[in-house]
């Protein structure tokens, strides 16, 4: 790697900590910060290698930013670097959540504050709906894709209904929780199998939209 500099394990960890603590704005914001730090400022890793880390993140489950951080850490310092990447990025939000969760259960029960939660719950619904809209714009490229999304959505809603049915039909009570438990994971596997079986036009899929 011409022009790359060596960044110590400790400095790598500190950089991840900083990104983890200030990384608001979703996965792409985190990716951008990592890229800025490791590719542009420290020149520790080439842009092509970094892009490979992002490509892995898009391919695999889990947050893209974590996958990319683990990959960059691994390229720089092997196993220890990978651990530094994961721990550094996750530790700040983890600690913040450890403060937020007790606060939620103590202060959040105050009757005066209930309005706040009445307000955020519709917002969460909007965030999830917007996420599905955004994922759909990116991921639904052909008729097979729309079909898979529709089938999964319909089944997921039926599974949700099974739980409600169980409240009224005692016989369904035993099955409903099991259905839910297989639920989302089973549907993801089903979607993958449908992707394998359904005919689809040859996609370019060169990973250009990293």
């Amino acid at each position, binding site marked *: 790697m011409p022009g790359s500099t060596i960044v110590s394990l400790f400095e790598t960890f500190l950089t991840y900590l900083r990104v983890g603590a200030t990384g608001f704005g979703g996965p792409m914001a985190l990716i951008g910060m990592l890229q800025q730090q490791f590719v542009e400022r420290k020149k520790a890793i080439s842009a092509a290698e970094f892009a490979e880390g992002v490509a892995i993140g898009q391919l695999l489950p889990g947050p893209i930013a974590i996958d990319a951080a683990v990959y960059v850490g691994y390229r720089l310092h092997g196993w220890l670097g990978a651990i530094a990447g994961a721990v550094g990025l996750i530790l700040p939000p983890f600690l913040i959540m450890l403060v937020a969760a007790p606060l939620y259960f103590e202060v959040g029960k105050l009757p005066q504050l209930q309005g706040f939660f009445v307000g955020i719950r*519709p917002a969460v619904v*909007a965030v999830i709906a917007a996420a599905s809209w955004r994922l759909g714009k990116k991921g639904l490229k052909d008729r097979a894709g729309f079909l898979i999304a529709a089938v999964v*959505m319909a089944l997921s809603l039926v599974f949700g209904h099974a739980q409600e049915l169980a409240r009224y039909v005692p016989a369904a009570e035993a099955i409903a929780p099991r259905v839910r*438990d297989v639920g989302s994971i089973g549907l993801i596997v089903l979607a993958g199998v449908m992707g394998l079986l359904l005919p689809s036009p040859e996609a370019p899929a060169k990973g250009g939209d990293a």
Partner: protein
Amino acid sequence: MELLQLALACLRVGTFVFGGGPALVPLLRDPVVFRYGWLTGEEFADAVALGQMTPGPLLVTATFVGWKVGTESGGAGMGLLYATVATVCIFLPSFFMTLAAAHQLGRLKGNPRVQRFLRGVEAGIVGLVAAAAVQMGQDALGGWVQAALCAAALAVLIRTKIEAGLVVVACGAVGLGLTLAGVMGGPPS
């Protein structure tokens, strides 16, 4: 026993959260709200909101779940232990998969079967997340004020680049203002 259930649930979710954050919502809701009843639907929505308001990936919602399950079984010490286990377990699968894939990326990307499977998964996640929005909407949108708030937030999120965490906080502030002004009643408690 509960710790083991929590660890396994988080490992399973961590293995299947394709596409990152959004898929977490339907996946984690299955065990946490429906199978084990660790959180109520409202608490889960609030936990996702907190995950959204904090920096970093949405997967730290698992930290919240661990904290609640742990403190209920034995105070703050257990809360810390459970929260740590939940967080490690939800990230562990993608950690190992990334390292495994680091050497195999070319082969994985070149394999047409893997490609087609993943494209199917990608489409499926869209449907799964959309269904989660519908289901959580049924719980959260009890009145016209909530529905209007949701519609406004959705418009802002789709039309602008304003960050989701900010939108959530802003809606909370509006909700707080409206209840204090007496326009909207809080839930009976």
